[in-house]
């Protein structure tokens, strides 16, 4: 039933050559990456090609790798072919200065809010998105809280006024 990972890899390399790279079998799921300018072309190809047919966007999120210069942010797409029951993971990396990545919301209606969420937490600028504004955080927020540069509060700090919380 399921499409072989090897087959998907061959199809993708045939179509995109060296642009798709870092193929990896991560716990049974094929994972690969492409340059961020190519993300829509790859997604569209995976969507349209009848032997692949990855038409269901399961998940879209970002990851921050602060030490990887020029590739600080990764946008991760989890795609699913429901008929063949195969999942793949597709990543594009972007630098933190210029975070433009093309939006997939025209292809998948589901991507609309997922991209807004990703923008909200990581500041990935989805080019072409019709309504790219914060979704879970307040509009006035001026930073992207899930980036690694904002650590959680030190649990051992003692300078905090606890009276407000009934612990004074």
């Amino acid at each position: 039933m399921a499409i072989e990972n090897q087959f998907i890899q061959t199809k993708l390399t045939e179509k995109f050559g060296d642009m798709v790279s870092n193929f990896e079998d991560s716990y049974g799921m094929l994972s690969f990456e492409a340059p961020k300018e190519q993300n829509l072309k790859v997604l569209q190809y995976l969507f349209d090609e009848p032997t692949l047919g990855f038409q269901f966007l399961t998940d879209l999120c970002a990851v921050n790798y602060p030490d990887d210069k020029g590739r600080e942010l990764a946008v991760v797409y989890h795609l699913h072919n429901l008929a063949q029951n195969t999942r793949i993971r597709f990543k594009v990396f972007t630098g933190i200065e210029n975070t433009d990545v093309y939006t997939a919301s025209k292809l998948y209606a589901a991507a609309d809010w997922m991209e807004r969420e990703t923008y909200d937490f990581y500041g990935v600028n989805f080019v072409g998105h019709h309504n790219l504004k914060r979704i879970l955080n307040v509009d006035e927020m001026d930073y992207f809280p899930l980036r690694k540069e904002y650590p959680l509060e030190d649990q051992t700090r003692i300078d905090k006024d606890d009276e407000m919380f009934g612990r004074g």
Partner: protein
Amino acid sequence: MTEQHHITLPEGSIEKQTTTLNVGPTHPATHGVFQNIMELDGERVVSTEQTVGYIHRAFEKLAERRPLYQVTPITDRLNYCSSPINNMGWHLTCEKLLGVETPKRVDYLRVIIMELARISDHLICNSIVGVDTGAYTGFLYVMQYRELIYEIYEEVCGSRLTTNIGRIGGFERNFTNTAFTKLEKFLKEYPKVLIEFEGLFARNRIFMERTIGGGAISAERALNYGFTGPNLRAAGVDYDVRVHSPYSSYEDFQFDIPVGKTGDNYDRFLVRNQEMWQSLNIIEQAYKKVQAFKGAEAEIYHADVPEYYLPKKEDVYTKMEALIWHFKIIMGEVDMPKGEVYKSVEGGNGELGFYLISDGGRTPFRLHFRRPCFIYYQAYPELIKGGMLSDAIVTMSSLNLIAGELDA
């Protein structure tokens, strides 16, 4: 007193032919914190804009500082109508990353708990749909049977709503005989209740008039919107994670996937009802399988993985080995393997996914929850467009939106 207050209205608000109505964030007709700014033409909805995030608690950020076993209580608070499914989903994710194999008995016990949770989730959702169409009786009547389910949770893990049930590798203790007695009681009493509940609604003329055709979505649009769970199945797509990527030995069970046709509120109601019957069926099968274990096998309630499974407290105080492992786990001396996993389970309202990235440390490097209702709530404006305001309320509850999961 003479001072006049000038209210400045937004430009064009007098000339325009529609009414703007603010519903929520805390509105008696919405179950949870949902705000909608609706444009109404008479009583018909022209458009709506949802605001979400009122109870956002930054779970994904919190999880980045917590060891795996401390993330479980966070997952409770996603879809709190069926927390055990979230807990199990998280344990399964960790087990996938750590390479832990669970014994069959653990799998079956988990299946029992997960299916009970599914019943309680669907029961709430369907009875709330009843409330929103004006029938309070069903809701009041079934609540005491949800109580039976909560009592079983209580017997297994000690808590009721936010259960924090189980551990990586299994359960914190074996099911007691009381738990099984309570389960038997539930299995005996519940079918009658469900028949009566269905009798109240399924062929009720008023209920049918209110729900048929409201909030309908085609299978194609539903897939494009990332629908999963009963909402997708009501639109006619038989996608169920339990069948497509079986976890926790679901492949050992015989059950059907009920599907609807039109994807409207009525079909969603029927699909959920049918799923409750299937869940009962699964629980009965699982209970038989659990009873078939004899002797030492009947005492197994966790996998033999001392490096991840927290030992029993008595053992920690009396046995050297257990004390060492306890110390290692609590002080964070057991590192996770590096890797990325995506694991999903069939939650009460759709595919609940966990995307966990580990960099080999003690805590997740990144954890992302695929929250089904966050994804399908996007379709709400499309579902209610052109319908009546009161149908929009029914649609909202029939989508089974849980604010805790929506806002994470």
